[in-house]
C-alpha cells in the first residue's frame, strides 16, 4: 500500500466513491466523490494528538466492533495516506456547544470543520473492478446463537482477535471472562452450501482459513483443544493438503457434522454443541469455551450500484460475471472493464493476486495497443426515421446509445461501445435502427425463403448465435435426432428478434414459431435476453387478441451445452405443429395479411 501511495504514476483516491461512469473503452469518464475528511491530508503527520483529546468514542469498524475508536481517527494502522479522518456525524465540533478540542491540539492546523465533498472527473481508458466482498451475517441462523451468546464469534472477528495488531494484541481470550479458552470449536460452512438458509455456493477459502487458525492456536497455545465441525474439508490448492495434515498432526480434531444447536451454560458461559456425527452416527454433545463460525462470502452490499454504473452482468450467486469462464476469465462483458479478487467470486489471497495480475495484464495490453477492434455487427440509426423517443437508450445493455429526447435530435450509437445484440433494433417502434449484417430485409428474406413452399409443414425457429444455435450444433455433432422440418434463423442475440419477424412468419403460413436464446445467467449481452421475454409476453397477448392461439409462439432458453434439450424441444414443437390445423393457418394469414405489405422502409 505504501508503495502504491508513493508511486509517481498512481493517483490514489482514498476515502472516495464513484458517483458516475460514462463513455466506453479507451474513453471512460469517471466522476469520483472525494468525501470530506475534515483533515488536510497534505499537512497531517498522523501524530495522534487530535485523537488523544477527542472525547467521543465509537465502535471501530476495522476491529469489527471489538474495540473503539475516536470520532477523529486513522481507519487502520497501515492506512494510506497516513492521515486522520474526522467522522462529522459523531464529532461534537459543530454542535451548539462546540467541542473543538482536536482543533486546539493540532499544531499544524490540519482540521477544517467546513470541508466539503468534492466531485472530480477522471479520464481513464480501462477500469478494474476490485470491490471485494462482504461476509455472511449468521444472526439469522438461530441455532448457533450468534449475538445471543457472547462466546460465539465469527471467523472474521476471530481474525482480529488473534492479530498482533488487534484489540487484544494477539492474545486469545474469550469474550465473557477475558480468560484464555481451553477448548475452541470451529463450525464450517456457515452461510455456505445451503440454498435454503444461506448461499448455495462454496466460499472457497473458509476451510483453509480454519486450518490456518488451528495451526496458529496450536503454535501459540499448545494446550488448547480444538474441534472443527465440517461437511467436507476442501483443501484443493497447492500445499493445502499438507497444511491440513499438519493441523491434524498438531492435535486438531476434525468431526464430520455441523452442530444442530448450541446452548450456553448460564453460569460458566461455556457452550454445549449438539452434533450428529455422520461418520459414527448418533448425536453427541461437545462442551467448548468458545465457538467460531466460519462464515462464507457474499457479494458486496453496493454491487447493484456498481453493476448499474458499469453495465456489468452478475451470476446467480450475485457476484460479477466474467465475459467467458475459460477464455476471458478476468474480462467483463463490457469492453475495457476487468475483474480482480472476490468481486468476481469468493477466492483466497493467492487466487486474488493471480487474477489481479491477469487483469492488469489485460488492461495494459489494451492500453498499449492504443486502439481497439470494434464489433463488425453493430447497430446503426437511420436519422430520417428516428423520432427521438429514447426507447433504444433504455434498452441498450451497454449504454452505447445516446439521444436528446428534448431537443428531438436523432439517437447516436457509439460503435466502440455497441456489442451488437440488436435489442435496440427490435424495440424501436419506428424501424429507425438496423443491425449491420442482420438487417430487417436480410432476416425477412430468410423467413420468406424458408416458408416459400409448404410452410404448414415447417417449424420456424429463431436461435441466438452464442447459445441456442450452438446447442443445435451440439445436437448435430452428437447425432441427437430431431425433426428435419425445423428451419433455423440465426441472430446474434434473441433480443434481435423483432415482433415483426414473428408476425411475418405467421403471415407467411408458419404453424409454429420458436424464439430461443440463452439462459438469463448466460446472456452474452448482459441482459438483452430480458427484452426477448418481455417482447414474447406482449406478443402472446397480441396474438390472442387477434384470435391466434398464443401456444403457436414458443419460447425456450437453450444453452450451448444443451444439445439434448435442443433436440427435445424440437420434437415437442413438432408435436405442437401437428395440432395446428390448415384452417388456423389460413385464418392467421388473413388476419396478418397487412404485415406482408411493403412499408417503404428498407433497413
Amino acid at each position, binding site marked *: 500500500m505504501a508503495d502504491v501511495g508513493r508511486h509517481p504514476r498512481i493517483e490514489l483516491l482514498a476515502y472516495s466513491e464513484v458517483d458516475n461512469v460514462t463513455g466506453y473503452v479507451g474513453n471512460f469518464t469517471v466522476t469520483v466523490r472525494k468525501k470530506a475528511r475534515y483533515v488536510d491530508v497534505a499537512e497531517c503527520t498522523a501524530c495522534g494528538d487530535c485523537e488523544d483529546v477527542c472525547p467521543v468514542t465509537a465502535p471501530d469498524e476495522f476491529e469489527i466492533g471489538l474495540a473503539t475508536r475516536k470520532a477523529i481517527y486513522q481507519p487502520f494502522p497501515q492506512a494510506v495516506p497516513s492521515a486522520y479522518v474526522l467522522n462529522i456525524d459523531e464529532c461534537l465540533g459543530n454542535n451548539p456547544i462546540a467541542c473543538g478540542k482536536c482543533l486546539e491540539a493540532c499544531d499544524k492546523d490540519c482540521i477544517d470543520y467546513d470541508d466539503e465533498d468534492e466531485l472530480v472527473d477522471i479520464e481513464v481508458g480501462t477500469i478494474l473492478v476490485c470491490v471485494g466482498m462482504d461476509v455472511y451475517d449468521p444472526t439469522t441462523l438461530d441455532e448457533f446463537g450468534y449475538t445471543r451468546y457472547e462466546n460465539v464469534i465469527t471467523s472474521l472477528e476471530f481474525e482480529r482477535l488473534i492479530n498482533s495488531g488487534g484489540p487484544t494484541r494477539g492474545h486469545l481470550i474469550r469474550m465473557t471472562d477475558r480468560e484464555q479458552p481451553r477448548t475452541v470449536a470451529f463450525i464450517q460452512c456457515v452461510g455456505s452450501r445451503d440454498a435454503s438458509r444461506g448461499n448455495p455456493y462454496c466460499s472457497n477459502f473458509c476451510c483453509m482459513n480454519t486450518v490456518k487458525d488451528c495451526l496458529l492456536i496450536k503454535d501459540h497455545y499448545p494446550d488448547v483443544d480444538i474441534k472443527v465441525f465440517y461437511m467436507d474439508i476442501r483443501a484443493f490448492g497447492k500445499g493445502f493438503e499438507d497444511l491440513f495434515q499438519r493441523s491434524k498432526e498438531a492435535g486438531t480434531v476434525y468431526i464430520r457434522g455441523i452442530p444442530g444447536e448450541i446452548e450456553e451454560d448460564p453460569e460458566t458461559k461455556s457452550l454445549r454443541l449438539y452434533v450428529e456425527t455422520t461418520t459414527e452416527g448418533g448425536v453427541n454433545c461437545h462442551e467448548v469455551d468458545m465457538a467460531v463460525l466460519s462464515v462464507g462470502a457474499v457479494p458486496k452490499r453496493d454491487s447493484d450500484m456498481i453493476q448499474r454504473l458499469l453495465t456489468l452482468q452478475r451470476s446467480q450467486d450475485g457476484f460479477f460475471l466474467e465475459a467467458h469462464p475459460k477464455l476471458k476469465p478476468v474480462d467483463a462483458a463490457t469492453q475495457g472493464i476487468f475483474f480482480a479478487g472476490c468481486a468476481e467470486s469468493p477466492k483466497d489471497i493467492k487466487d486474488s493476486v493471480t487474477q489481479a495480475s491477469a487483469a492488469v495484464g489485460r488492461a495494459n495490453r489494451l492500453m498499449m495497443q492504443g486502439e481497439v477492434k470494434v464489433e463488425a455487427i453493430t447497430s446503426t440509426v437511420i436519422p430520417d426515421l428516428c423520432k427521438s423517443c429514447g426507447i433504444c437508450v433504455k434498452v441498450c445493455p451497454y449504454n452505447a446509445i445516446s439521444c436528446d429526447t428534448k431537443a428531438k435530435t436523432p439517437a447516436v450509437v457509439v460503435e466502440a461501445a455497441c456489442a451488437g445484440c440488436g435489442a435496440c433494433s427490435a424495440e424501436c417502434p419506428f424501424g429507425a435502427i438496423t443491425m449491420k449484417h442482420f438487417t430487417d430485409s436480410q432476416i425477412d428474406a430468410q423467413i420468406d425463403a424458408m416458408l416459400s413452399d409448404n410452410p404448414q409443414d415447417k417449424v420456424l425457429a429463431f436461435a441466438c448465435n452464442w447459445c441456442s444455435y450452438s446447442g443445435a450444433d451440439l445436437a448435430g455433432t452428437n447425432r441427437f435426432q430431431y425433426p428435419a422440418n425445423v428451419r433455423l434463423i440465426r441472430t446474434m442475440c434473441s433480443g434481435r428478434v423483432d415482433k415483426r419477424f414473428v408476425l411475418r412468419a405467421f403471415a407467411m403460413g408458419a404453424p409454429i414459431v420458436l424464439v430461443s436464446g440463452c*439462459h*438469463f*445467467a448466460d446472456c452474452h449481452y448482459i441482459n438483452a435476453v*430480458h427484452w426477448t*421475454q*418481455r417482447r414474447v*409476453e406482449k406478443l*402472446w397477448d397480441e396474438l390472442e387478441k387477434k384470435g391466434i392461439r*398464443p*401456444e403457436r*409462439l*414458443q*419460447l*425456450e*432458453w437453450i444453452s450451448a451445452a444443451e444439445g439434448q434439450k435442443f433436440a427435445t*424441444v424440437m420434437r*415437442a414443437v413438432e408435436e*405442437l405443429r401437428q395440432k395446428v390445423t390448415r384452417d388456423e393457418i389460413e385464418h392467421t394469414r388473413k388476419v396478418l395479411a397487412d404485415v406482408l405489405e411493403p412499408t417503404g422502409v428498407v433497413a
Partner: protein
Amino acid sequence: MAEEAKFCCLRCGAEFLLPYTPGVTEERTCPNCGSNSVRRKKDK
C-alpha cells in the same frame, strides 16, 4: 418474500403458481414439462 401468481405452460397446458414480482423479468420453467413458454394468467 415475492408474491405468487398463476402461470400456465403454453406447451403442455399445465397451470401452477410461481413467484412473481411486477416489472421483474425472470426465467421461468414449467414444473411439468420443463418448457420456458410460461405465461402469466391474468385475472379477468
